[in-house]
């Protein structure tokens, strides 16, 4: 009897005309996504859909899946409301209630709707498979296609059905339910920057890498769905509790339902508390929201204090063993410390969240440590901070043993960070070893990394060499003199290396796609040679250019003697034709990051230490100005003036114009009226325009005024005077002195 009713009702839902229309539409939604994708601006796909990567895989899988999920959500809101409204519309509730329980009816309806959702999802998978095959060329990575479609599209449908049903049962009104669901959808779009768990429709999946595995994308996707399910379940169960009994009000029905179905309130309480439990136990990131970022940026970042009474008297030795299939690392840190004060001294050290301390020894005796609360120290919000006590007048070895899974900050939402099966990305020094806050003068960090033999380890500093290899585990060496800039990347890399006038240039490309990346090796050499000629040789003896995972995509950065560039930015076409130039041109990004080796790596451009009044209020004067302008010079040399002008100069002009027209730029006194979030976004805009538009155009004005030859001569002078001199900074006024250009000319161009 019960099953008969169940199957009958499911069949009825599936047979209704409206359901069929919705299923048919939902089948086609991903296809519609593909068709409209050329018209979507990059802003929409990053801001609303949360896709940061432009690898082929992400564009073929995620874009249609996410658009499909958004549209299916809308369609299933309509369908669910339609189905649930039937009882009221046909005024049959008083007939049904005595025959069958309302719970059974609701659950049956849900089951029928879930079936409809499943049919449309599977159908869309079938429709989109040829699209996948045509774009990728094979069925490699097809499992990601299936996972994405199932969890993104079907997941959003399931959550939509449960939430819509819950709200409908709660409010008994079609319009209110639709409005609330519409805001729930908006919330998913807007709150994603706070925490990826809030993206209940489109999920936080940012992209798929083609060569480096996918990091935590799939666990993130699953966690998204788990959190969404607990929330949707709570709403649905609460709705069921409030389901009006015939001729009874809200509270009477609630009480009656609680009495009638004892398990229902229990289920509700369980799912309600699991919402908080799931939210707080998010396994991938250390929770640090965009709000924290904003407040830290506005209040000024406070670092862990350095105790200068204690001196590091030996180099820092680190041995790290990475078990990438367990997402686990075990490390030992050793350094000799000297406390010459007459009192015991407390010192601090940072370690990434996710690591725990196994043992700390000082002078071969175990000592106690305490973890500092984030309330006391701002830096403890980002990573774990520990405090230990060094006895007076001693000089002995500190020995810290630690292990665990280092976590990235949630504000970044970068799922490629961490230790993963095919790819290791530890981008903060405290992800690798404890950062001990004592006086470290000219001390280097060195040691070994043990990792699976298939992976190549890349770290700042000298060439990383294989020391030994046994049982499929390789031991790599590293040493670097600026431990605060140390990071570690490991993956299946091929190396293209050349010795160019005394510098080892190493280009690390994904081994699996060596064909596509081969020509890029020569590009890097071109760029390197151009800058070496025009500025001066790179002193470090070793330059590494690393292609990184495209899971987050679109980025490049420089740290120490490594320039990083994401695989997706390198695989976009580089246009020789100026009419096709775009801001996302890959050659420009690669060149920019290599130029940072001189501007930022060797020479430090800042007004920070200058007392000259000319340098006041010129915070656009940074390394970015020269890195971007050097990119212009290289592109002009390689592709011609028209191309470079179009790609960069015009953008700087536009950006500077926007900056100077901005109200808060013209009236900085109003900045203090802003509350934190708008202040953060206004400062972000002003900073971005200053760094990447006003700064480069200032340098361009000087260049334009004195001519190319004089400019390069000035570069040689600057190189000789500032390169590799740590305490000498190139300020705006000094640059004007060297080039002999008046301030007005540099700023206004005339």
């Amino acid at each position, binding site marked *: 009897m019960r099953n008969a009713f169940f199957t009958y009702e499911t069949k009825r839902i599936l047979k209704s005309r409206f359901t069929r229309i919705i299923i048919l539409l939902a089948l086609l939604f991903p296809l519609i996504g593909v068709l409209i994708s050329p018209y979507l601006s990059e802003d929409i796909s990053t801001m609303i859909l949360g896709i940061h990567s432009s690898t082929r895989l992400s564009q073929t899988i995620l874009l249609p899946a996410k658009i499909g999920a958004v549209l299916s959500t*809308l369609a299933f809101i309509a369908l669910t409301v339609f189905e649930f409204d039937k009882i009221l*519309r046909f005024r049959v509730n008083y007939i049904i209630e005595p025959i069958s329980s309302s719970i059974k009816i609701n659950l049956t309806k849900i089951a029928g709707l879930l079936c409809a959702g499943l049919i449309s999802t599977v159908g869309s998978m079938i429709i989109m498979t040829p699209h996948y095959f045509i774009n990728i060329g094979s069925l490699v990575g097809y499992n990601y296609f299936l996972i994405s479609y199932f969890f993104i599209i079907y997941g959003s449908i399931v959550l939509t059905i449960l939430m819509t049903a819950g709200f409908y049962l709660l*409010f008994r*009104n079609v*319009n*209110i339910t*639709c*409005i609330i669901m*519409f*805001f729930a959808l908006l919330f998913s779009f807007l709150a994603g920057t706070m925490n990826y768990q809030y993206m209940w429709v489109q999920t936080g999946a940012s992209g798929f890498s083609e060569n480096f595995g996918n990091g935590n994308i799939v666990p993130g996707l699953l966690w998204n769905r788990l959190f969404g399910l607990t929330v949707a379940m709570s709403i649905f169960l609460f709705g069921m509790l409030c389901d009006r009994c015939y001729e009874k009000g809200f509270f009477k029905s609630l009480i009656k339902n609680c009495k009638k179905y004892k398990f229902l309130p229990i289920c509700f309480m369980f799912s309600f508390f699991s919402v908080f439990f799931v939210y707080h136990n998010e396994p991938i990131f250390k929770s640090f929201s965009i709000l924290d970022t904003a407040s830290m940026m506005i209040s000024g970042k406070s670092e862990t204090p350095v105790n200068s009474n204690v001196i590091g008297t030996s180099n820092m030795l680190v041995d790290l063993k990475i078990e990438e299939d367990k997402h686990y690392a075990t490390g030992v840190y050793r350094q000799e410390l000297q406390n010459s004060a007459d009192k015991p001294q407390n010192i601090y050290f940072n370690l990434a969240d996710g690591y725990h301390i196994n043992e700390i020894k000082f002078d071969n005796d175990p000592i106690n440590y305490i973890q500092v609360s984030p309330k006391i120290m701002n830096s403890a919000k980002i990573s774990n901070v520990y405090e230990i006590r060094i006895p007076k007048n001693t000089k002995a070895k500190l020995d810290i043993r630690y292990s665990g899974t280092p976590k990235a900050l949630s504000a970044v939402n970068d799922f490629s960070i961490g230790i993963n099966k095919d790819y290791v990305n530890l981008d903060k020094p405290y992800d690798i070893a404890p950062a001990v806050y004592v006086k470290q003068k000219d001390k280097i960090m060195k040691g070994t990394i043990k990792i699976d033999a298939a992976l190549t380890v890349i770290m700042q500093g000298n060439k990383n060499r294989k020391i030994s290899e046994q049982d499929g585990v390789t031991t790599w060496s590293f040493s670097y003199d600026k431990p605060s800039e140390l990071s570690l990347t490991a993956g299946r890399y091929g190396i293209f290396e050349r010795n160019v006038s005394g510098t080892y240039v190493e280009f690390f490309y994904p081994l699996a796609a060596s064909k596509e990346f081969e020509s890029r090796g020569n590009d890097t050499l071109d760029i390197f040679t151009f800058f070496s000629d025009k500025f001066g040789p790179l002193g470090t003896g070793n330059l590494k250019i690393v292609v990184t995972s495209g899971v987050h995509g679109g980025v490049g950065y420089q740290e120490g003697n490594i320039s990083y560039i994401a695989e997706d930015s390198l695989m976009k076409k580089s246009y020789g034709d100026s009419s096709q130039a775009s801001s996302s041109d890959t050659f420009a990004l690669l060149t920019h990051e290599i130029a940072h080796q001189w501007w930022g790596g060797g020479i430090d451009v800042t007004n920070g230490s200058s007392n000259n009044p000319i340098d006041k209020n010129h915070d656009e004067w940074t390394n970015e100005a020269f890195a971007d302008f050097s990119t212009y010079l290289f592109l002009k040399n390689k592709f011609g003036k028209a191309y470079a002008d179009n790609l960069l100069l015009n953008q700087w002009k536009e950006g500077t114009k*926007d900056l*100077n*027209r*901005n*109200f*808060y*730029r*013209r*009236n900085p006194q*109003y900045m203090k*009226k*802003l*509350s934190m*979030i*708008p202040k953060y*976004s*206004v400062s972000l805009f002003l900073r971005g325009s200053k760094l990447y538009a006003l700064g480069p155009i200032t340098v361009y004005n000087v260049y334009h005024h004195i001519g190319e030859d004089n400019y390069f001569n000035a570069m040689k002078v600057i190189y000789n005077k500032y390169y590799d001199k740590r305490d000498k900074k190139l300020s705006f006024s000094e640059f004007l002195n060297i080039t002999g250009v008046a301030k007005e000319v540099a700023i206004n161009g005339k």
Partner: protein
Amino acid sequence: MESKILKYELKRIIFSKIFVITFIIEIFYSVINLYTEIIQGVSGTSPFSQWSYCKFLCDINAIMLLILMLSCTGLFSRNEQRVKEITSCTALPTKKYLATKCLALILSYIIVAICCILISLVFYKTTFSFSSFQNFLLPILIILLPTFVFVFGTSMFLGSKSQTLLYAWIPVVLVLSLVSFNSTPFLDIFAKGYVAYMPTVLPVDHLGEPVFRLSLDFIMSRLLFTLVGMVLYVASFKKLSRKI
């Protein structure tokens, strides 16, 4: 007699669950919008410029019209049809009855709009001690009115054909309110794209603020929307009163 019906209808709308909830959402949204978005100024203009105020009006208008359209669906619901069957027998002329109902809807829109505008004035007064509110009259007129007339007219027209058509029209308007058209005012019902785009191309005054000048085709487009809305409204009215 009519004023009694009007009062009754107005009360019915204002005390309905849907109106209360959407009203709260609207107020909440206005506050958030003002304190996080408008305070930054649209396209680099000052937060108290006419352009920024236009942007604020565009943003709230989308939600206000959503409320309006949903209330419109009530006019064409089954219940209402049944009521009509009864009222058509009474002495009350159907035309007047319909007119009062529409008037009640319009009044409810105006009430929400006035509340939002009051909130914005309080915001400007307290945050920027700005009180040259007469500048905002033109934006209120040019942003709210044409869009309102157009959406109301089309909703009435589609609703008079069938309720489903009206329900289908709601998501279309929603999508139109979310997409921003830069310089094609004839597509841009809500003028969202226009008010964000124009300050970036217009010349600036002595303070560096982009001047508030509306282009001819924009004004034409507003007139067109108003006209179309009015024609459709009259058409639907004729149709509805004939129906019975």
